[in-house]
């Protein structure tokens, strides 16, 4: 499985994939992308890295990431509740040409959930298979 071709390709594709995933996360507010797509792209890049270079040793608590991501998502909606607005109300503002939205926090939460859940699933099946 771990051929030279795979390793050489992975050296380029893995970092590029992770970067592309992060880009999708940031532009997702009004362009194609968003937390889910970004999470899948990033997780796929990481899995490719595992295929090429092997999985990192030691037990990783990926399920903790799932909780953390969900918590970030819910928390991003609770801010509005504290201000007396409906749950998940988000704010938009511009700093110069840069558009800032609080819904990015929600997307980050989704991103963390998707990455952790995908990696947890792949890792578990992987360990069960070997």
């Amino acid at each position: 499985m771990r051929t030279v071709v795979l390793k050489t390709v992975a050296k380029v594709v893995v970092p590029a994939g992770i970067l592309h995933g992060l880009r999708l996360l940031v532009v997702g507010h009004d362009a194609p992308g968003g937390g889910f797509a970004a999470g899948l792209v990033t997780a796929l890049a990481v899995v490719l890295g595992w295929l090429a270079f092997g999985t990192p040793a030691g037990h990783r608590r990926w399920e903790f990431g799932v909780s953390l991501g969900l918590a970030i998502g819910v928390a991003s909606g609770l801010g509005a509740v504290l201000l007396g607005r409906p749950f998940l109300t988000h704010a938009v503002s511009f700093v110069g040409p840069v558009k800032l939205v609080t819904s990015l926090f929600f997307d980050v939460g989704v991103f963390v959930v998707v990455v952790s859940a995908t990696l947890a699933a792949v890792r578990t099946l992987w360990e069960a298979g070997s």
Partner: protein
Amino acid sequence: MNALLAALVGLLFAAGTWLLLGQRILRQVIGLGLISHGANLMVLLAGGLGGRHAPLLANPTPRADPLPQALILTAIVIGFGITAFLLALGYRMHALEEDEP
């Protein structure tokens, strides 16, 4: 185009049902996947392929209806999670079969 896609939905359902009625777990998982893809395609059809006129915009060119796409994305996400779960469950059944003959 509508009729073609409708036929494709039917085909996906037929193939999925056939696989689901088989004996092997992996086939059943794939069958369930095909059925849910058929349903997703049907949601897309339900939104209308030609697009609808956007309610708030002045220029009356038809635009793709975003709601079915949002619905499908949600359904795909759910299907993705369930497929992962089914594969794990199938694997577990396989492993248990070896443990307790």
